[in-house]
């Protein structure tokens, strides 16, 4: 077996057919961006799953840590007034 360095890891994002945003579908290995795009086409769009592909080198992604879940997301829990259902609107007003 050769001991060559491993081909870098890329994360793949695909825009589906229906005017949606790009969505993460998985990852793959490729030497460069060009090869990553070609591989992504073969691995993730064999059945018309997409109209556009983004590839991003995995090392370039900064992710929040699971431990930061509290400080990041809990403050939103107490701000229920940000949801329309917080306000009672009389039936006579109709839809609002």
């Amino acid at each position: 077996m050769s001991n060559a360095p491993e081909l870098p890891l890329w994360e793949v994002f695909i825009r589906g057919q229906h005017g949606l945003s790009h969505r993460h579908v998985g990852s793959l290995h490729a030497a460069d961006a060009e090869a990553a795009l070609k591989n992504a086409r073969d691995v993730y769009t064999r059945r018309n799953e997409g109209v556009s592909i983004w590839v991003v080198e995995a090392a370039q992604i900064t992710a929040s840590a699971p431990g930061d879940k509290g400080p990041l997301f809990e403050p939103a829990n107490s701000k229920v007034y940000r949801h329309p259902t917080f306000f009672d609107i009389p039936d006579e007003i109709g839809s609002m």
Partner: protein
Amino acid sequence: MYAQMVKSTGHGVKPLDEMDPQERAFQERIDAGDKIEPKDWMPDGYRKNLIRQIGQHAHSEIVGQLPEGNWITRAPTLERKAILLAKVQDEAGHGLYLYCAAETLGVSRDELTRMLLDGKMKYSSIFNYPTLTWADMGAVGWLVDGAAIMNQVPLQRTSYGPYARAMVRICKEESFHQRQGFDIMMKMANGTDAQKKMAQDALNRFWFPSLMMFGPSDKDSVHSAQSMAWRIKMNTNDELRQKFVDQTVPQAEYLGLTVPDPDLRWNDETGQYDFSEPNWDEFFDVISGNGPCNTERLNTRKQAWDDGAWVRDGMLAHAAKRKSQGIAAQ
């Protein structure tokens, strides 16, 4: 199944009140149906077990290309050839989805490949049987992919997020595999006497190896109990095997073929089929390296890896050169 003999670490399932708080919180998340994601804390055993299970599953998809790849150049029509090629290409994709799920647990792709090639990781016993005639392409799609589906559908609900998502993608593609196999079987079973004979012969050879795909009975296995508590195994091997038999026997009858088991019969009381166990000595022999094709399969994978080395090296060198020249790959 595709992960037939994955032994979990530990000795049976620890009750919640014996777990330390972290482990207990983890188990409670799983019990509540929560998904575990790559960066979440997880017990060592959970991580190790999943790497082995997903890795073995991935290797099975990759090695599983070989018995069918054997017939691509000899498919009877251009249409059958295109279909078989697409099916085999899907299996390569399945391997890749699964490797990328395994990699999120901290093992590298090349490490997994090395363990396969060194014989330290296994793949499903079924792929160590030869594909001797075109009818085998029918039997493999119908029975082998059929058995795989039986195992993979429940795994879409497994506790590890990346594994579950890989399973969802795979399951979407598997149904084509089984149907194209059954379609071949229908053609052969309704063909000339010689073709019908080939179809029966393929069923004769693949029936018991397909039943072995679910692994030995694990009713009393502590390993299996731990995996089920972690929700990385969703059903017992026997449950799935029974389900497979109940589903497949009527299909064989439809084809006018005979399942090669003299003791197979419908049991009115249980509402399912009684059937003979496969020969488990044969199973253990095949899984430990002595099946008809083990050496050939592994050598083929080794050669593919070695022959591809100059391509990987060349692509890396090209990427490095462009980077040093400041050319963005566009």
